[in-house]
């Protein structure tokens, strides 16, 4: 502190002697150093007072009292400043914790894309914030079936992430039952209904492809309908299946339906972050997506997903405001 005070006194004396830009600049740089060393505002005034008294011993007592007064009132500025700094540190801690949580979520929710000759599979899931509210879960434990759940948790951020882990473990448990879509949805509904609060729920599309018969069986719990492109007709069909969102009521029954996949057919499953164009009507958005898919239909399933994301992002002027998830099964 002694050293700092001596420096300050020199800089001040230079400035009083000659009020040049350069002398002022030296003072400003010096103050930056003091801030870095966490010197409080009232300490700086104290240094200023002592320096003035040393440079001008004949300074009137009234001016010294004035400095004392200023030092006292500046104490509160100092306190507020320290509070602000500790909030910044706290915020930084939270940010680090959020990063860790997001990493854990990503690790927990990793799903392995099935490798099979029966289907070409593509998948993309882009979160709008750190934590993804969408989730895709693949099941492929034998050669006969490839199943996929496309899940959107309502609510965002941390609560949604916690709910998602529950869905994931539910699905992991069901892996060994080789579940029919209606059964999978019924079991998950019971788990979620019991565990989450009234305004939280999950929409889910569950599809299972029978590799030997080329039959795709699907069911939906309040999820966006998937699209089925029939190459023989050159047309899209909406795979609609009525079913309540998961977690709203106990004991809900879910129906399931079947379609056959022929050569060149594909199924596009997506979340509402894909179909919802905030500034355009719902019917338009479906048409846009179908037209886009028609252009992309000769690419691989993975390329189709990636191109879809790029094109729709462009269309929405980079203002996508929801998590974006697409899964494509292509025969």
């Amino acid at each position: 502190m002694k050293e700092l005070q001596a420096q300050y006194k020199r800089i001040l004396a230079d400035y009083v002697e000659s009020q040049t830009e350069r002398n002022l600049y030296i003072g400003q740089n010096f103050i930056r150093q003091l801030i870095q060393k966490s010197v409080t505002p009232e300490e700086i005034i104290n240094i200023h007072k002592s320096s003035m008294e040393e440079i001008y011993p004949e300074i009137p007592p009234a001016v010294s009292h004035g400095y004392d007064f200023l030092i006292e009132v500046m104490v509160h500025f100092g306190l507020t400043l320290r509070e602000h700094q500790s909030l910044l540190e706290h915020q930084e801690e939270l940010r680090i914790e959020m990063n860790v949580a997001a990493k854990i979520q990503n690790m927990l929710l990793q799903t392995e894309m099935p490798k099979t000759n029966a289907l070409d599979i593509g998948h993309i899931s882009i979160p709008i914030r750190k934590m993804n509210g969408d989730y895709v879960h693949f099941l492929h434990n034998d050669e006969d079936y490839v199943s996929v759940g496309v899940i959107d948790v309502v609510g965002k951020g941390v609560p949604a992430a916690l709910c998602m882990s529950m869905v994931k473990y539910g699905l992991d448990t069901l892996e060994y039952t080789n579940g029919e879509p209606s059964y999978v949805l019924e079991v998950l509904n019971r788990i979620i209904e019991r565990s989450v609060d009234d305004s939280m729920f999950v929409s889910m599309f569950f599809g299972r492809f029978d590799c030997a018969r080329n039959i795709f069986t699907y069911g939906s719990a309040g999820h966006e309908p998937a699209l089925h492109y029939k190459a023989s007709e050159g047309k899209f069909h909406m795979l609609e299946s009525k079913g309540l969102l998961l977690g709203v009521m106990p004991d809900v029954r879910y129906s399931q339906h079947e379609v056959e996949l022929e050569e060149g057919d594909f199924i596009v499953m997506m979340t509402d972050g894909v179909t919802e164009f905030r500034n355009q009507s719902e019917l338009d958005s479906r048409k846009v997506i179908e037209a886009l898919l028609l252009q992309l239909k000769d690419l691989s399933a993975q390329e189709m997903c990636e191109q879809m994301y790029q094109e729709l992002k462009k269309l929405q002027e980079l203002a996508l405001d929801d998590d974006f998830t697409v899964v494509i099964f292509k025969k």
Partner: protein
Amino acid sequence: MNINVQFRQNENIIRGFVEGEIDTYTAPVLREELDNLRITKGVSVELDLSKVSYMDSTGLGIFVALYKRATREEAEFKLVGLTSRLARLFEITGLSELMDLEVDTDTKVEIGNESV
């Protein structure tokens, strides 16, 4: 992005008018307003959504919570004036089977099984 809610109570009937956009940012405001309602046995709550220009799934969450609360209290809950866009949201999520909804007669809902 704004939201405005106004209530009028007439004996046992509470009528609410919601205006604006319901999304992640405005939802907490709406939720708080609805939480403050005194819902008791025999009360009928009717929310008019005809002036809601946009709603995402967060909005659904709020109405599901209110529906559950009303059911628990043996009160009635109804949403009226749904535009076709909002109606479709309730349709897809299966909530239209559960809740009492009235679609705005000017805009018919069209849910096709096929599209070209």
